[in-house]
């Protein structure tokens, strides 16, 4: 699973969780906060992404990324750690 695959999962889960963003361009540079996704929704999207990746890590270990690209890279690193 590549970083791009993970980014695509994140974008898909964003659309699932916040359907009103379906027409919003979302890229690796996008910050979920800046496009109006609230903290509950951000957690929901992250949980769904972890499920889709079959990855189990503490949520707090995923705190810090400033945009979806950084988050994808962090998730990719966690998945690689196995």
């Amino acid at each position, binding site marked *: 699973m590549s970083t791009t695959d993970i980014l695509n999962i994140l974008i898909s889960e964003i659309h699932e969780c916040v359907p009103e963003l379906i027409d919003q361009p979302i890229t690796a540079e996008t910050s979920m906060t800046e496009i109006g996704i*609230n903290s509950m929704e951000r*957690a929901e999207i992250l949980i769904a992404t972890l*499920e889709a990746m079959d990855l189990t890590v503490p949520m707090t270990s995923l705190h810090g990324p400033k945009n979806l690209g950084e988050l994808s890279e962090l998730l990719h690193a966690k998945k690689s750690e196995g």
Partner: protein
Amino acid sequence: MHQNVGIEAMNLYGGRASLDVHKLAEYRNLEINRFENLLIDEKTVALPCEDPVSFAVNAAKPIIDALSEEEKSRIEMVVTCTESGIDFGKSISTYIHNLLNLPSNCRLFEIKQACYSGAAGLQMALNFLLSGTSPGAKALVITTDISRFALDDKNAVQEWAYSEPTSGAGAVAMLVSDKPDIFRIDPGAYGNHAFEVMDTCRPGPDTEAGDADLSLMAYLDCCNGAYTDYARRVEGADFKKSFQYLCFHTPFGGMVKGAHRHLMRKLYKTPSPEIESDFNERLMPSLAYGRRVGNTAGGGIFVALTGVIDNAPISAPLRIGIFSYGSGCCSEFFSGTVTPDGQKVLAKMNIDQALKKRHLLSMDEYEWLLSGEQTLRFGTKDANISLDNIPGVSSNGTGKNWLVLEGVSDYHREYRWV
């Protein structure tokens, strides 16, 4: 060892003034449609003549008044649980002990661990009783927290914006004994999960700092970790089947909903519609009072417990699972049972009626309260507080059983009954 221990009596004091948080959201230009997901309607606002001591005593007074002198003489421990302390050394419990005329052979102390303090206090009391060192003893455990984070400067309101609609005030008093009429604890049935994290904190007497994402993440990790530890200790524990109702620490209802959803997916991969109906059935009653007083910090789980016992149909003994989380962080999942008779005991406190009687603040009144005029600051040496011009006080027609703060003399806080 006496295994039959728990909460003999309890009461929620939700203050004398409240604010419609939907109006606040409009006033602050917050997004109303998404705001509905917070599952909160009102919050209690502490008046200048109220502090954590008066909140605590007003919660405990009806419980103490209902005791005989002999029963009262067996109160051998008063534990205050708070993150709104009024002194670095002297505990709030010393004031409570005096104002309620409790016996002198009594342990007095205060517990701090953010919103976990109430669970910690209850466990201290329960384990004192379970130790059997003083058969027949009772303990008074009181959670008391108020939020006044906008007092420092004008910018504080802006910084506080993310938590302003949910920051409430309230106190829950619990008489803990070997006569657990309201809530019988399951001895030994608990699980903990703790780790160091800087999610939210109170670095100064009137300031709060935090990271909403990190706090939510820590809460979710703890919900899973504490329940997993509970299930490790309790043979046959099943999150879906063992508890007829659940009470989670409630910063706001939406967070509880998120944690419940997380756990149901993690443990059972439950589909969304089933999660929704399980939430409505097993958790919604716990929000009955929390959505009216706001986040009460250390008392959150007990506000939830009173909500369940007062509002859920209880026709036979049933088990309630409780999850407490305190930033920083420490958490616990534990359980106990309630009965139809226990429901009748709690109903005597008329919590719902007391909440309905609160004065509904206008935005002008609320802004005046936020400005902190007349409000006693941490570390004040001398002050007088007048009841004049305080919103809602005169129009409430105050009775004779309301304790108010009237001033401070040489750092000693002074109270009177009005």
